[in-house]
């Protein structure tokens, strides 16, 4: 190559590399806080299978709803309920027919202290604690489910003064993990991490005490033409993803 061609040649080579990276796309994903752990495990597997990479934002589902309505650049939403994706479709912010259940959530009552929570949840009625952490029931489906459990046990009014509310289930977990709240309602996936010992004690709450936490994914309008976003939803429906999701304690 003549010398005068060297610089443009290098430029072309760079552009060609960029083009390849662009074909192996990127997806902006809004992930419900309870699913952050499994999604971090699923990300590398998705990249290995498809070449696409994920950019994850973790938060409360209700908050994502408000942000998406305000024009947030998310392309896929992995919600903690099935209502929010339906609403987004109705509001024209998500693509109709793309919502499906990727996981059924499991609620647990957890304490960082071993032996603090019994396997019947009698600790709730005994009330020997100062603070019970939940996710904000207005924006986090797991928080709403926690309130259903308290009502089913007839404890909602008695325990109301002891409730501390995290803005998402991740903050509820953090209140319990630091010991500032003796116990709290969190997702099973936050407590029983595959391959790691469980810290403290927990009660896996019978599904009869709360409405099923059907977690739906949906393709958002922003990502409608992004091949990587479409690939992510297809891949989440597959067997590889299903196995991992079940290993993290979710139904399917």
């Amino acid at each position, binding site marked *: 190559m003549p010398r005068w061609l060297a610089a443009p040649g290098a430029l072309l080579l760079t552009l060609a590399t960029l083009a390849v990276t662009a074909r192996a796309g990127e997806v902006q994903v809004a992930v419900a806080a309870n699913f952050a752990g499994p999604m971090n495990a699923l990300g590398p597997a998705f990249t290995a299978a498809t070449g696409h990479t994920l950019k994850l934002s973790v938060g409360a589902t*209700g908050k994502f*709803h408000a942000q998406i309505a305000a024009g947030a650049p998310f392309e896929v939403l992995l919600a903690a309920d099935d209502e929010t994706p339906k609403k987004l479709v109705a509001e024209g912010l998500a693509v109709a027919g793309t919502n499906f259940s990727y996981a059924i959530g499991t609620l647990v009552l957890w304490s960082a202290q071993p032996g603090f929570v019994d396997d019947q949840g009698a600790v709730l009625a005994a009330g020997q604690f100062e603070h019970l952490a939940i996710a904000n029931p207005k*924006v986090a489906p797991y928080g709403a489910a926690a309130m259903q459990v308290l009502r089913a046990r007839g404890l909602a009014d008695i325990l109301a003064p002891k409730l501390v*509310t995290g803005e998402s289930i991740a903050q509820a977990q953090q209140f319990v993990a*630091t010991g*500032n709240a003796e116990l709290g309602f969190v997702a099973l996936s936050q407590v029983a991490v595959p391959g790691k010992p469980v810290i403290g004690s927990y009660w896996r709450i019978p599904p009869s005490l709360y409405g099923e936490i059907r977690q739906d994914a949906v393709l958002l309008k922003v990502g409608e033409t992004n091949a990587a976003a479409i690939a992510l939803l297809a891949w989440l429906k597959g067997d590889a993803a299903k196995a991992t999701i079940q290993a993290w304690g979710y139904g399917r």
Partner: protein
Amino acid sequence: MTAGDWGAVRLTAELAALTTVLLLLVGTPLAWGLARTRSAFKPLWAALVAMPLVLPPTVIGFYLLLLMGPHGAVGQATQWLGLGRLPFSFAGLVVASVLYSMPFVVQPLQQAFEAIPENALEAAATLRAGAWDRFFSVALPLARPGLLTASVLGFAHTVGEFGVVLMIGGNIPDRTRTLSVAVYDHVEAAEFAEAHRLAAGMVAFALVVLVSLYAANRPAAKR
């Protein structure tokens, strides 16, 4: 406005008022000391007071949550004293606000004290005014504009505090749900009308407070 929102208004006013009073009690001697000291460590003390200006509220909130928790030094001390634990309590918010709003009170006071001419204090000394007398009869009256600025900024900044309260408050109605958290709550839940009522009120409050402050502190010659 709902009863919950009025509760947030009342709580925020109480928190800001109590914080301001405590900060004036703690901050005045601190600012006086900083203004008068010839110690080689003065930059260090001044830097420690100014830290909350630079640190993100998340950093302060994170360390307070650990320190005031059951395994933290402060948490163990308050439990040993029979005071319980500070996170999720009004007292905890007061402690956090005092730390967080410290520079807004100490710095204006320190500047006011530093502006007092040395000879005013010396003249008082030759008239046999003792150290306490010089402070209360000469320094404090001369520092009046600084005192006003410190009080107003301390109060207003505590009203505007958000990140620390969010991290250690637990969003409990009438105890730790301040105005800023209530606004965040409404926005998160897409209750924009409720959010507007509180948010617009806070914009108006901030403007009125700052205009009054700047008007009151205009140099006398220009009035």
